[in-house]
């Protein structure tokens, strides 16, 4: 554990420069290039108006959203993997993504024009769909007043499958909206705005911060619910609280960006391999790791193809899948 503590201190040496480089790339690269000189001129107040618009109205809110959404997905994945004692768990196994996709699909299909706090109908419906889906999963998983991780996973899979089936039905009925729906489910920060930052970011930050509250409980819950109870941890309560927090965090992330896979799955794995299983370190580092990863992925999504943006979910999967397979091939248990 002492060795892991040293690694935790050393990891900053990598993460801080990486984070700065990721942020600079996000500001400088894109369809219109911005030079470092122009970037510094912005803070001196003597930049071109067009540069100012690109930076303050487009790239800065987008970078903030990508960073915080990635963090929210990373810390939620770490919490849920610990809670379920399952390395394949992330926020999406409990129905967040399928519920959000159903909500967004309904908004697309019926061209709803509702708006709230600057959020369009699609974001709003996605958020509500994610919340409703997890609430249904939780209710279904509650048997005799208790919610086991096993029944949560099963209920999550069942509700997700049902939501996906409904999405496909709606897509067939509204073929003209199919492309919008498919693109949304692959995730993108192209609609980033300050409204989304002002409403979404504080909610994600607060939910993520409160997750840290349960880090030691998660360590103890790995020893089993009954053992945890005898060590002063009510596993049922912790599970319910973490479900609420991770659902809020990921529902916010999904509502501002669409569905972005692999961040919540891969980032906690990488951090666990480097830092060990202690959630007191794993949770904050998964937040920062997830944020930096998604910021880099979003920049790549914008720049790899000229004049066309690739959905960020595609980039995270393209980086995430090979890395995941590499971890599996390493022969070391990824659960540890």
């Amino acid at each position, binding site marked *: 554990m002492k060795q892991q503590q040293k690694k935790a201190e050393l990891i900053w040496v990598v993460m801080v420069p990486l984070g700065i480089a990721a942020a600079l790339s996000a500001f400088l690269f894109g369809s219109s290039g911005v030079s470092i000189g122009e970037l510094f001129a912005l803070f001196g107040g003597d930049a071109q108006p067009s540069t100012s618009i690109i930076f303050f109205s487009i790239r800065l809110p987008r970078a903030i959203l990508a960073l915080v959404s990635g963090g929210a997905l990373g810390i939620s994945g770490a919490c849920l993997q610990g809670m379920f004692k399952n390395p394949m768990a992330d926020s999406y196994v409990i129905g967040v993504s399928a519920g959000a996709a159903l909500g967004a699909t309904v908004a697309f299909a019926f061209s709803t024009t509702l708006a709230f706090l600057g959020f369009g109908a699609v974001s709003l419906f996605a958020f509500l769909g994610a919340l409703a889906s997890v609430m249904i999963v939780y209710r279904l998983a509650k048997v005799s007043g208790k919610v086991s991780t096993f029944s949560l996973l099963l209920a999550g899979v069942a509700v997700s499958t049902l939501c996906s089936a409904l999405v496909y039905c709606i897509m067939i009925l509204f073929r003209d909206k199919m492309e919008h729906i498919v693109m949304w489910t692959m995730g993108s920060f192209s609609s980033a705005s300050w409204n989304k930052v002002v409403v979404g970011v504080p909610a994600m930050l607060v939910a993520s911060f409160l997750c840290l509250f349960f880090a*030691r409980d998660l*360590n103890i819950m790995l020893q089993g619910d009954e053992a945890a*109870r*005898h*060590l*002063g941890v009510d596993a049922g309560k912790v599970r319910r609280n973490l479900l609420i927090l991770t659902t809020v965090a990921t529902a916010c992330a999904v509502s501002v960006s669409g569905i972005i896979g692999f961040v919540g799955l891969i980032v906690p794995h990488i951090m666990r391999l480097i830092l060990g*299983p202690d959630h007191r370190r794993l949770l904050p580092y998964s937040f920062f790791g997830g944020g930096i990863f998604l910021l880099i992925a979003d920049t790549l999504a914008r720049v790899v193809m000229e004049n066309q943006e690739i959905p960020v979910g595609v980039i995270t999967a393209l980086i995430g899948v090979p890395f995941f397979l590499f971890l599996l091939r390493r022969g070391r248990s990824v659960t*540890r």
Partner: protein
Amino acid sequence: MSNMVISDINYSYEPPRYALSGVSFEIPTGRFCGIIGPNGSGKSTLLGCISGHLKPERGSVSIGGENVASLSVREIARRMALVQQHASLEYDFTVGDIVLTGRNPYLKRWRSEAKDDYAMMNDALQTAGIVHLKDRLITTLSGGEWQMMILARALCQQADIMLLDEPVTGLDISHQVSIMGTVRRLSAQRGISVVCVLHDLNLALSYCDQIVLLKSGKVFAKGAPQDVLTRENIESVYGTAVHKFEQDGKTFILPIMDV
């Protein structure tokens, strides 16, 4: 004071069939009480009711006059520590990390373990005789080493009552004697009350001050080991013929093998 009173406990998993019915007995402070009985007789259910993990439909468990049902999870954890059967845990924690979790009931949410907590961890490792395992990863432990670690975790909890659920099942005789001996010694020296679910009647005879013999969820007999573990009682409860004999001043029970 950790005088424990179990009064008229009824518990059912599937009503109207009762897993426990009208179970009552008392464990004075510092006594080693064995719960024995055949498979399905309600031993682990009774331990679950005592620990507050299961809520009895009727009856109560009280410690030093306080009803366990009225205590919070953290308060219960400060008074009762649990040593379960060996279970694997596939995470790279060290033995020291796991033993230190015994301090959790005393820690505030945002507080890390202080020097005193580490001192208590070291003391628990010393008492359990596993100081040399402190930095070993738990994934590399044998079954016996694992149980000693869990025992050390329970010691680190500094509870007045220790609950043991088949603590030596599946262990070799050396580890059986080591674990039971350590618990027995602690019970005598520190006044820790012990409630231990056991299958081995000879261990129960050797280490327990009192025994509760269960049959079909009811107390069949209770009292001193020699009075409870009579040939007639054992044959009646287990439905198997046994030899009971003495050697070197100690009593032994062996099933009559029909080979």
